[in-house]
């Protein structure tokens, strides 16, 4: 980055003095040097031009430069010790359309849901939030009521999420589709994982002795690989790769939901994520290698933050959501 001192304001072009910290014409903060690094503004001041908190309107727009201020949903973390999750807007989207649900029930069962709103639909951020809240609440209630067949419960949870998204109010326009989102959920109970998914949000098992992808995308690319017409690398490189073939929403194709159970044979971590992460490390082997580089005593929160930063460093082209769950296999009775 050049260290040349600016002589004209980068925002409005007005002439500025070398010693100026702020442009006198438009109030933009002037930094001599790295323009990428956000200036450290006083808390509450505009993240764009540094205007004081009083200048921020009640609807979140700065009344001087017009920039929409960051929202809490832009970066959100949940840390429950045995499980942790991070969701982040990324570097290129104007809002976070991913949603995250993560809770631990009274009996220690973990319920996790990750949803990724479809950008070409209306109000995708509302869709993903509605789906994850509806399914998450349903799963938690089922677990608290000691429900047995977690696969059936997972199917019902996806039904509930589908209803919730289909009911998101929207006004038809020529160009945009009805609110839509992907979905992936995991219920981790007594050493077994019940998974359900729609679209291309994924679950991986990163065990101490093995690593594998647990979900198969509802996507064009996956269809090609399944049919044997392309390798995974070829399909991923095609521009059509990310067209999803199933989603939740008013105009979604119908059919049976994809569900499965997985019982790990040793300790390890479950990872759920949206494509904002796996686009940068699609295979289980790549994710496992990244994980292996983390210190042994790293907390799950630290590891999920690490994966998020990895995606941001790769370019952060999409919203990023990562959830991890620790699996310690219960001791078998009678010793080794």
């Amino acid at each position, binding site marked *: 980055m050049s260290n040349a001192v600016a002589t004209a304001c980068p*925002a409005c072009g007005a002439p500025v003095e070398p010693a100026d910290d702020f442009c006198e014409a438009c109030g933009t903060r002037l930094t001599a040097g790295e323009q990428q690094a956000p200036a450290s503004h006083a808390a509450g001041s505009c993240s764009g031009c540094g205007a004081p908190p009083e200048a921020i309107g009640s609807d979140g727009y*700065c009344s*001087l430069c017009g920039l929409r201020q960051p929202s809490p949903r832009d970066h959100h973390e949940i840390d429950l010790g045995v499980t942790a999750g991070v969701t982040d807007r990324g570097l290129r*989207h*104007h809002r976070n359309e991913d949603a995250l649900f993560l809770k631990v029930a009274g009996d220690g069962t973990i319920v996790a849901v990750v949803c990724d709103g479809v950008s070409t639909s209306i109000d995708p951020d509302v869709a993903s939030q509605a789906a994850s809240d509806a399914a998450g609440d349903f799963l938690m209630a089922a677990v608290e009521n000691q429900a047995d067949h977690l696969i059936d419960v997972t199917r019902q949870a996806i039904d509930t999420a589908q209803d919730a998204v289909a009911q998101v109010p929207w006004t038809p326009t020529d160009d945009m589709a009805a609110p839509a989102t992907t979905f992936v959920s995991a219920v981790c109970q007594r050493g077994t994982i019940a998974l359900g998914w729609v679209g291309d949000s994924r679950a991986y098992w990163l065990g101490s002795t093995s690593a594998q992808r647990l979900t198969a995308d509802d996507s064009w690319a996956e269809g090609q690989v399944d049919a044997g017409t392309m390798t995974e690398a070829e399909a991923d490189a095609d521009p059509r790769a990310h067209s999803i073939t199933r989603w939740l929403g008013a105009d979604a194709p119908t059919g049976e939901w994809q569900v499965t159970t997985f019982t790990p044979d040793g300790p390890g971590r479950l990872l759920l994520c949206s494509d904002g992460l796996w686009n940068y490390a699609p295979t289980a082997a790549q994710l496992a290698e990244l994980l292996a580089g983390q210190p042994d005593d790293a907390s799950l929160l630290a590891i999920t933050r690490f994966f998020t930063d990895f995606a941001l460093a790769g370019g952060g082209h999409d919203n990023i959501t990562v959830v991890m769950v620790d699996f310690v296999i219960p001791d078998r009775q009678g010793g080794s």
Partner: protein
Amino acid sequence: MTTFTAETYQNEYLPEGGAEVNAVVTVAASGSAVNGRVGGSIGDVDAVRGASSVEAAEIVIIDISGSMNYPPAKLRAAQEATGAALDCIRDGVWFGVIAGTKLAHQIYPEPGALVPASTQTRNDAKFAVAQLQAQGGTAIGAWLGLANELFATQPNAIHHAILLTDGKDESETPAELMEVLAACDGTFQCDCRGVGTDWVVSELRTVASALLGTVDIIANPADMPADFQAVIEKAMGKAVNDVALRLWTPQGAKVQFVKQVAPTIEELSGKRIVVNDLTGDYPTGAWGDESRDYHVCIKVTPGKVGDEMLAGRISLVVDGQVQSQALIKAIWTDDTQLSTQMNREVAHYTGQAELAQVIQEGLEARKAGDEGTATVKLGRAVQLAAQTGNDATTKLLAKVVDVEDPATGTVRLKRQVEDADEMALDTRSTKTVRVNRPVS
């Protein structure tokens, strides 16, 4: 009480480095409930039931220059039309009648003031109008100047005038007319009508645009009474005066234009009143229950991909109170599927504005003898009118050109065009077709 709503229609997504934001803003007013029946007296309970009555002032200005005698039917029609107009004025509304030559003559009531309408005063006025004789010149500025003075005697009323002329503004210079228009700016609205074909469209359009009014041709004098009635009835429906469209834009942004695009095209950019560094007010005159569309174009300093910026904030200023709000947004994205779509409302009105422009340019070229340009421009007009479903304009164009293929805009200029048809196309070129929205 009149309440306003404002709604934005736009594609907010811009490509990396994109700076131009276009939006259509629909402003709707309702709840005007202007009361008072024509013919009822002020004390009439029915007349004041409901919303409080609105103070209004109405002046009818008619041309009595010598040409109004050729034929005599013209003057008689103007007298009849004035009577019809007076009959539409609500009881209690202040009114007066000005007859114009190279001077302005207040023929009713006694010069210097207006009177409230009642059965008695309306009849007295009609009597005065019946005595009119036509002779002399035409000085529209003088007539407007007198109307301005009379309106000043009723400062709290909504001021509206209807002006009729049949010829060129020959008894004063254009500079004199412009001076009067500047003095009248913002004090009253005036709808202008030209009868016959000897008046100049661009002249009357200048007056109407300056005074936030409409302009139209009455080709056949017999149509005058009905037209005057319609104009006055519309004026009587206005309940709130001096409504301004307020536009805030952020630092580093420039307003490229603000235009009314429905029901007619009016360029408002030149009328902007500065409120502060970032805010300007655009006068829109008096409102009844109605809806108008505006096209706003703002050039902003591009943000980074992922930024969301408020490019404009629209609100309505009514009686000093700010009402309603519509947001014009800019969101930078690298998703070309999002940024390359053109919002259909913006596309529609951009087309309608181009339609008005090519009609006016085509007619000018035709008058100047430049048949090549005229054919190209009017051909483009035919194409646009067909594409945007503007049937009224298609019919008017068909009187001036022979249409071979509306899809490609292939036309031939007609050899013989009636002046009235050419002037009708010219005056109505700014009438737009409303974009249709799905009924939710």
